[in-house]
């Protein structure tokens, strides 16, 4: 398994290490529920250095990138970032990702750990004109600081005035130990928070500094277990679960990303699907009966199978089971009921509006 630059930190914090996408990372330090709760009520710190960072730059970078994603880059300005995805020619999702515009033709793509190699190959094989694709994942560590006290904790270390003004989906350049760091007002938890990108050798120092500064605010280191419960409550997709190459953005609840007027890979397939009707949709289900749904549980109405869960688990905030499910379109209206089959038992669940949990100031 691969190790991030923060491996020794996880050992010293007694992290319970597991294999995630070939990386040795903590699923928890003390308790998933404690860490989840810290993110929702105080602050939590995540090592997500296993994620991929890919540079796309050159005179043709903007044009090239626009041809690879279904989301318009028109409104993106330097210092801004946006969520998007890449599709194959069937309209299936190759990966979901964040696009950071550093300069006019200079982009940083942040991608999933499990798909980094695939994404680099995909981009490289389609590169045309003056464009350079560079996989810098091996050089960069990523630390996520999430929760209500994120800004206060971060401000104790980064005294840039611009930090408190940094809006969501914007990022800034700062320095740590006189070396560059990117601070982005983004996250995967449904709370306010920041994602920090810096060179590997700086990561342990920053990690420890954040934990020290955050102590008085109740900051806890948090593992992949809490990262999953948090994103599920916020109804964020996870590649390999809600998103895969056989499923289009329309089917997996991210159809709003498809707005580009330019040509892009998958455009004609997506137009076809829209024309003929989208066959499946992603719904949010809350358990009414006792039970915890997991992924790949059948979903039925009146004994008839209508779909399958793509993710499931226990919501520490709602204190009940929740799931995302891919079902035949139109079969389950909001507020209506279905059964999720958990270990051969039908458990009643209700279709609810997304998200299960919404951040409020």
């Amino acid at each position, binding site marked *: 398994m691969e190790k991030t630059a923060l491996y020794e930190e996880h050992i010293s914090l007694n992290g*319970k290490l597991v294999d995630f996408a070939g990386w040795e990372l903590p699923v*928890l330090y003390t*308790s*998933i529920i404690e860490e989840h709760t810290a993110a929702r009520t105080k602050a939590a710190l995540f090592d997500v250095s296993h994620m991929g960072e890919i540079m796309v730059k050159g005179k043709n970078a903007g044009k090239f990138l626009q041809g690879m994603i279904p989301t318009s880059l028109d409104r993106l300005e330097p210092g801004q970032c946006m969520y998007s995805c890449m599709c194959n020619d069937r309209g299936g999702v190759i990966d979901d990702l964040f696009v950071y515009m550093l300069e006019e033709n200079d982009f940083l793509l942040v991608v999933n750990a499990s798909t980094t190699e695939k994404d680099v190959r995909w981009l490289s094989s389609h590169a045309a004109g003056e464009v350079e694709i560079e996989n810098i994942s091996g050089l960069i560590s990523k630390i996520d600081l999430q929760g209500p006290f994120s800004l206060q904790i971060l401000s104790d270390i980064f005294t840039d005035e611009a930090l408190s003004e940094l809006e969501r989906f914007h990022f800034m350049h700062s320095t740590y130990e006189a070396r560059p760091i990117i601070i982005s007002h983004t996250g995967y938890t449904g709370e306010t928070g920041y994602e920090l990108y810096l060179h590997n050798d700086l990561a342990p120092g920053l990690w420890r500094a954040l934990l020290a500064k955050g102590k008085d605010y109740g900051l806890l280191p948090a593992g992949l277990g809490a990262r999953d419960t948090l994103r599920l409550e916020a109804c964020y997709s996870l590649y390999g679960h809600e998103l895969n190459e056989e499923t289009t953005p329309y089917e997996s609840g991210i159809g709003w990303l498809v707005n580009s007027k330019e040509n892009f890979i998958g455009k004609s397939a997506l137009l076809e699907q829209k024309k003929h009707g989208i066959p499946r949709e992603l719904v949010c289900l809350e358990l009414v009966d*006792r*039970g*915890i749904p*997991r992924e790949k549980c059948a979903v039925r109405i009146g004994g008839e199978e209508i779909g399958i869960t793509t993710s499931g688990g*226990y919501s520490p905030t709602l204190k009940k089971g929740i799931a995302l499910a891919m079902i035949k379109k139109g079969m389950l209206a909001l507020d209506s009921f279905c059964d999720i089959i958990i270990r051969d038992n039908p458990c009643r669940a209700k279709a609810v509006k997304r998200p299960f949990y919404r951040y409020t100031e």
Partner: protein
Amino acid sequence: MSTIPKELRYSKDHEWINVVEGNIGLCGITFHAQQLLTDIVFVELPEMGLTVEAGERVAVVESVKAVSDVFSPVGGKILEVNNALEDEPALINTDPYEGGWIYKIGMDNPEDLEALMTASAYEKFITTGK
């Protein structure tokens, strides 16, 4: 609180039984088991009146990440279940030998107890794997 109470008997799957009177025993999972699972968020209790054999699955305990079968250390009939675990499954974490008891069983065959480990044997088992 001892993490391996002396008066109990233990199975290789980390269940315990406490013979409370005659042929009646209280059963649950050990401190060691709950520590491995961490936050227990759901318990599927056995059916009242169910007859089980020693080693048969009798209940299910779920943590945030995992689903874990509970096997009955002895054979017999389920006399009572701990309904408190429906609202407070975390009792198994905080009080695995008392408040976190899972079911009460009327043993068919008290000799089943002989096949179980004593406290010292269980301690050896979890530290050395033997």
